[in-house]
């Protein structure tokens, strides 16, 4: 039982990748941030996990993980008996309470990447990591103030329901569904590759075995248990992560007599940058990058399909507001804990030779740059705690990919199949059959792509995912709710402009142009496209809508008034719990 999870690197087929990944870790913190951008759930790409070497099998972690899987499969069985209608499948029948949904949203946002990535940023840079943590948080209050109630009052199952509410059903819905699917697929690849790498690292399972395991469980949760199972898996994982993180935080603080001052003093004396870790460093000296990053984070998050669909699982706008209140509370608390963990790790992990390659303090961390919090768990709670935290990290990935698969399946079955292809004439049974088939296809696709991308650096996909969400999906979503003048033409051209500019910026930036294509210098100098591509998308949408003088455009503008009343009052809103 008491064996080390993190053993020295084994030489094997993956050694070159591991070496490349190590280099990637050291490159700049901004790459780590690009990976982190996934905010929600993302697991950083393999580069950021810092090592893909297989570890010895970790029995504690595996036993704990099996307990988790067994209980979630039990829940899936229970949920399957309650999943009868399409509304049950897509939105848990609208029967999730604000508190439960708050936990589930928090679970979507508190991922393995936030636990590992943010704590390792604090471990490496101190205060700069804290600044990033704050940037990851501030989107939530804005989502509540500006979006939550309108999302709930206008949406039924998908984000396309809102975007196409008064616009051309076929065109806008198809575009919105394609936007969702693109985000879901890229995100799924990132998660699958991250899952394979992390599980290999923490559990000692083969990459392919890990990816297939994740794919199979994801399909089982989604096809049998729908949104009810997906939500409860997310809730359980959120509770485990909050509980585990808090316990680790308390253990860490106890080492310093529960004094933040002595924790900071110890960290300063252990870190090679000394007192500089207590103030802003050089990471964010450039305000353009900082603003672009935070715009992408805030509005990209607000347009991720698997986050948006959570707003449709509660019965009304009142519960939707409560969800965000609880979710922000849990997320804010967890993020503060994560910063404490990172600071504590500086003196506890950073001075202990057992956590460094070759026992050389200050050298490379065993398992890579994202591991400080895992080492901290081992230092404070032994192998049992390490096993527990590893199992929670695995559970986190599972919960997130399930949400993604469900979001993708609803875009295919509800938007494309039922509304566009069958023009709303499909029966509920047919639609559900298609959605289950779609989640199966997404599962297979996820596993295949996950294995294909094993040796690729997928960090750029993270930037792409958020860039597309913030630039192609968000402007259309936002303007459809807030601006009377939006027309079908404007939405389509603006969406395409956002899509093309986001992809172009990412391709010309350092993550692809230099890291993947091997050019010397990036053409687009910033890592994050949102400031430029999102602004461009808004501009195009507004200009094209204004120039659109057609009769259809006039009719669409006229429909805004009714939509506005529904958005504000909830009259006529889909109330799934009354079906």
């Amino acid at each position, binding site marked *: 039982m008491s064996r080390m999870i993190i053993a020295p690197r084994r030489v094997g087929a993956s050694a070159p990748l591991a070496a490349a990944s190590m280099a990637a870790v050291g490159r700049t913190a901004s790459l780590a941030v690009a990976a982190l951008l996934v905010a929600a759930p993302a697991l950083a790409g393999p580069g950021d996990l810092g090592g893909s070497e297989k570890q010895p099998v970790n029995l504690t972690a595996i036993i704990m993980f099996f307990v988790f899987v067994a209980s979630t499969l039990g829940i899936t069985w229970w949920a399957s008996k309650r999943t009868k209608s399409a509304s049950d499948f897509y939105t848990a029948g609208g029967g999730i309470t604000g508190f439960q949904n708050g936990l589930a949203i928090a679970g979507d946002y508190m991922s393995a990447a936030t636990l590992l990535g943010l704590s390792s940023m604090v471990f490496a840079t101190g*205060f700069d990591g*804290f*600044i990033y943590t*704050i*940037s990851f*948080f*501030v989107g*939530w*209050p*804005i989502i*509540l*103030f*500006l979006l939550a*109630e309108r999302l709930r009052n206008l949406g039924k199952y998908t984000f396309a329901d809102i975007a196409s509410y008064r616009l051309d059903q076929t065109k806008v819905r198809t575009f919105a569904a394609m936007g969702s699917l693109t985000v879901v697929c890229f995100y799924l690849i990132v998660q699958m590759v991250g899952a394979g790498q992390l599980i290999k690292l923490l559990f000692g399972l083969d990459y392919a075995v890990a990816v297939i395991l994740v794919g199979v469980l994801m399909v089982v949760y989604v096809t049998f248990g729908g949104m009810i199972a997906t939500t409860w898996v997310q809730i359980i994982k959120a509770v485990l992560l909050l509980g585990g993180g808090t316990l680790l935080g308390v253990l860490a603080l106890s080492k310093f007599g529960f004094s*933040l*001052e002595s924790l*900071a*003093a110890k960290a*300063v004396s252990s870190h090679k940058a000394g*007192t500089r870790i*207590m*103030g*802003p460093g050089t990471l*964010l*000296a*450039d*305000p353009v990058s*900082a*603003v672009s990053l*935070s715009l992408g984070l805030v509005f990209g998050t607000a347009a991720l399909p698997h986050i948006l669909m959570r707003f449709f699982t509660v019965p009304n706008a*009142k519960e939707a*507001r*409560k969800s*965000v*209140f609880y979710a*922000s*509370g849990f997320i*804010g608390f967890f*993020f*503060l804990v994560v910063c404490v963990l990172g600071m504590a790790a500086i003196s506890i992990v950073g001075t202990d030779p057992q956590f460094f390659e070759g026992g050389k303090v200050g050298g490379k961390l065993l398992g890579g740059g994202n591991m400080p919090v895992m080492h901290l768990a081992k230092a404070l709670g032994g192998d049992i705690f390490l096993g527990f935290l590893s199992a929670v990290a695995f559970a986190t990935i599972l919960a997130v990919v399930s949400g993604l698969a469900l979001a993708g399946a609803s875009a295919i079955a509800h938007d494309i199949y039922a509304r566009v292809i069958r023009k709303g004439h499909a029966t509920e049974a047919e639609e559900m059959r298609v959605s289950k088939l779609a989640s199966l296809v997404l599962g297979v696709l996820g596993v295949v792509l996950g294995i294909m991308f094993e040796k690729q650096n997928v960090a750029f996909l993270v930037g792409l995912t958020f860039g597309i969400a913030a630039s192609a999906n968000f402007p259309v979503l936002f303007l459809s709710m807030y601006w009377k003048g939006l027309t079908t033409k404007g939405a389509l051209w603006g969406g395409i402009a956002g899509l093309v500019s986001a992809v172009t910026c990412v391709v010309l930036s350092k993550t692809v142009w230099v890291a993947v294509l091997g050019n010397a210098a990036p053409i687009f100098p910033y890592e994050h496209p949102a400031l430029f591509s999102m602004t461009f998308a808004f501009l195009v949408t507004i200009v094209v809508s204004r120039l659109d003088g057609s009769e259809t455009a006039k009719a669409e503008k006229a429909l805004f*008034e*009714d939509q506005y*009343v*529904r958005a*504000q*009052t*909830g*009259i*006529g809103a889909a109330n799934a719990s009354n079906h």
Partner: protein
Amino acid sequence: MSDSATYERVRQNPKFHELVRKRTRLAVTLSVIVLGAYYGFMMIVAFAPDVLRTPLSQGSTLTVGVPVGAAIIVVSWLLTGLYSHFANGAFEELNKDVVREVLE
């Protein structure tokens, strides 16, 4: 019930306009506070980082930046509580009045 006639009656109800005005004012005010605090903080980070590096008191390791950063998270969360309190309380009652009067 969700036809245009209903929505037209809502628009003619003065309480609807009161609801929208009050709730929008609160939402916009709070958004400005949160975004203002956050982007203000980021501008200090970019242009006057030394302010945040000042020790909290003579000889302490903790700097001004630590409580300021934590306050941004905690205060903006409290504001979500404030918004929910009003939107789910007084405004929700107003909303119910509108719905009741219109659907009668």
